[in-house]
């Protein structure tokens, strides 16, 4: 790890937001995989747990069968989807924010005092 720290001592640039988002999505997918595995087993063992909507949803994802490669690919897709949603959201907000009608088309009048 000496080499990784040596490279980071004088980085050309810091970790990008998209890189951070991607790794965060990878972590989320790993967590969902473990949670899905846990509650799939629990659902098998105890039928009264099956009424819990959240646990049923987690179990139905079937992520416990996914390997790391599939989780990373899914995380990439999730990161792209989240970025696209964020971009669309910002554009929609800008489009929906009304411009100030009092300011549209107005030119500031400069008053000059002439003697």
């Amino acid at each position: 790890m000496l080499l990784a720290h040596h490279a980071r001592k004088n980085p050309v640039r810091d970790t990008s937001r998209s890189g951070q988002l991607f790794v965060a999505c990878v972590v989320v997918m790993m967590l969902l995989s473990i949670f899905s595995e846990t509650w799939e087993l629990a659902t098998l063992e105890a039928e009264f747990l099956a009424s819990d909507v959240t646990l049923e949803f987690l179990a139905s994802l079937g992520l416990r069968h996914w390997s790391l490669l599939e989780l990373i690919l899914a995380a990439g897709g999730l990161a792209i989807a989240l970025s696209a949603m964020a971009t669309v959201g910002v554009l929609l907000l800008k489009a929906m924010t009304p411009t100030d009608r009092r300011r549209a088309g107005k030119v500031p009048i400069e008053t000059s005092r002439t003697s």
Partner: protein
Amino acid sequence: MEMDILSSAFLSALLVIVLIDLVLAGDNALVIGLVARHLPKDTQRKVIFWGTFAAVAVRAVMAIGVVWLLKIPGFLVVGGVALIWIARKLLDPQEGGGGDHKVAAAQTLGAAIRTVVIADAVMGIDNVLAIGGAAHGSMLLIVLGLLISVPIIVWGSQLVIRLVERWPAVVLLGGAVLAWTAYGMIVQEPLLKSWLSAHPTAKPILITAIFAISLAPWYSVHLQPKHKPLVVLLPALLLWLLAFEAAEDIWHFEVDYLEANSMRDYAIQAARWFGWLPFALAYLAWRGRVTQQTATAQR
């Protein structure tokens, strides 16, 4: 345990090993450069050749030793805990900072090779342990992991440096994968398997704690100040919710919020979904006070 070569499990394990080699291997080239920097050019070439040969030999011996050790009951947990610590150190921004690395330049060929062998034996342990944990007992994967690390050791230090500079997220991803590998090692421990089967909620609690411990140093530095409390709040919230699941396992009661019909049931559900709020607010208030005091002290 040998897997099918083209199966997704094998390819995933291979991907893990490549990532581990990228972030943990290659130290040998750096050490050789530091140790041999004051030697004459022809001696440097000998140090590079014999140092690299020794590095590969030492790693092969250590790999055999790690595979043997991990078969001893209890050592998978030890290895997993060690990997968590390695992942945390890899992502700790304080680590590796400061001036030159503390490797003394050698004055003779023998001293240089001896320093390289010892330094690589010490620094290669994390690489070999991580490969041993990721290989799931497959000798083919261990051999592939060593073979992949050899070109990195011999030629790849500049490549690794350029890769990390171009995509700094590789190190963060490497840390996350190390934490995942550590979790895999701990849950495969034969001594714990029956207990984990009886208490399935322990696995999500374990993976949450492992990720929190490994990734917190990195995120605590790289997040914007207004988002930094999330480093503590998010894992704490997850653990709070999981604690209720664990309590249901241990004390054998079940309360489904759709089927709650008594004050006790409502109280448990209220505690589960809202009980964390006072602690979160207290933490934010304490953090705000500490930040203010620090800012005042700096002025």
